[in-house]
């Protein structure tokens, strides 16, 4: 699994970030370094779940607007600042879906399909690939999130736990169970 260097900080990077957060609380204009640091990450998270590029940029902007407005409420609790931004992003995304401004999209690379088929110990035929796409579409939202975060975006269980506000072990258990469900749908 890839390690996201922007998410998994060293101690010095964490201290530097805390300093930026303190300054941003006093003066919103000081939020700029945090914006530049996390803009691409948050956009990619949003765009992974949306079809429209412009709408994804809009939602990303809304995430940072909310973050700037509520930075005074943020408290450091041992998790990276990014996890707070991801939670705002999740909320803004689902608001956009509820308002019917955007449609929930799942973006998959061909290599992910191949990995799944190999995991399920089946031959990689065109039929199996189509069958797997149908199976993925049958997953509920919670399982889809876990599959996306773990197998499409290659995030660690720690990161998944912080984004979904669950423990690392729980993220691990739920991810494996989601994969198990997908396998069951595929085989049956």
């Amino acid at each position: 699994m890839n390690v996201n260097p922007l998410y998994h900080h060293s101690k010095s990077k964490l201290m530097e970030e805390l300093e930026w957060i303190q300054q941003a609380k006093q003066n919103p204009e000081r939020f700029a370094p945090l914006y530049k640091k996390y803009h691409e990450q948050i956009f990619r998270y949003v765009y992974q779940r949306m079809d429209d590029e412009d709408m994804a940029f809009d939602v990303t902007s809304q995430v940072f607007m909310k973050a700037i407005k509520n930075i005074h409420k943020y408290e450091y609790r041992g998790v990276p600042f990014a996890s707070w931004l991801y939670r705002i992003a999740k909320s803004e995304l689902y608001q956009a879906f509820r308002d019917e401004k955007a449609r929930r999209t799942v973006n998959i690379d061909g290599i992910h399909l191949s990995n799944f088929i190999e995991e399920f110990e089946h031959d990689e035929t065109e039929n199996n690939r189509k069958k797997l796409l149908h199976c993925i579409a049958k997953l509920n939202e919670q399982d889809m999130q876990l599959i996306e975060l773990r197998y499409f975006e290659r995030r660690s269980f720690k990161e998944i736990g912080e984004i979904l506000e669950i423990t690392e072990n729980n993220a691990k258990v739920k991810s494996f169970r989601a994969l198990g469900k997908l396998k069951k749908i595929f085989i049956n």
Partner: protein
Amino acid sequence: MKNYKINLNRKKLSSDYIKSKQNFEDVLSKSFSIGTASKSILKSGWFYGTIGLSSIAVVLCTSYTKPNEIQIGHQSIAKKQTNTQIMLASASLNQVESNHIQIKKNEVKQVQQAITENKQVEPLVVAENQLKDLKPENKHKIQQNIPATKVNLAEEIAAPTKKSTEIMVVIPKISGVHNGDIAWSDFEKGEIFIDQNITIEKFNINYTSQFGDKTVSVDSATIPKEVIQELKDLGLNQTIFITNIVAKDDLGNLLRCYSMDLDIKF
């Protein structure tokens, strides 16, 4: 939410392109203008109008719920007056009760009569609060009159659903445990067992080592000693996943097994 649109191999956007779309000044100015908009709502007329109407509605409701005293015969009863259920009356208790309560009492009488005449009682007529008014022996009779169809439905729900026979048959275990808590002393025995006629051919084991997540592929029925030692040295209560378990029966047929989630307890 199952209404997904699935895109396969969508073109990826470059980091430079995404960076070119950054506009902090715009985001900063908009975040302040959102704050201004919310203040204007507080100053708007409809906001205070809504609050005023709500207050009037609350006052009207409370004025119709004052307690009242009613003198009936030799008893004095204090009752709460509601605007739908109870009507004021003079003299006797029967006249004070509402038509609604009277109708319910009549229905209960009908049910009691039906029981004594041994008639089939419509289950829908007999609600829980009516059962309370019946004598205990009659309550039991009513409960026995539940139609057979309801019982059959319950049995159908309890019946196991059909599953693939390939996976249903084989449930692997370590020291008798398939899923859930397992003591370290049982886990470290390391042998996955199904049945004396079925042998495990291979499996994957996933666990958290001191270096992070690790998956080891094994071509036997036993967890490798190195893995056991690693887990023992770590001494961490964690969930171990044993997946992709392939077994063979005595006819040489390959069988796929249920995966295992084991919570090791030191």
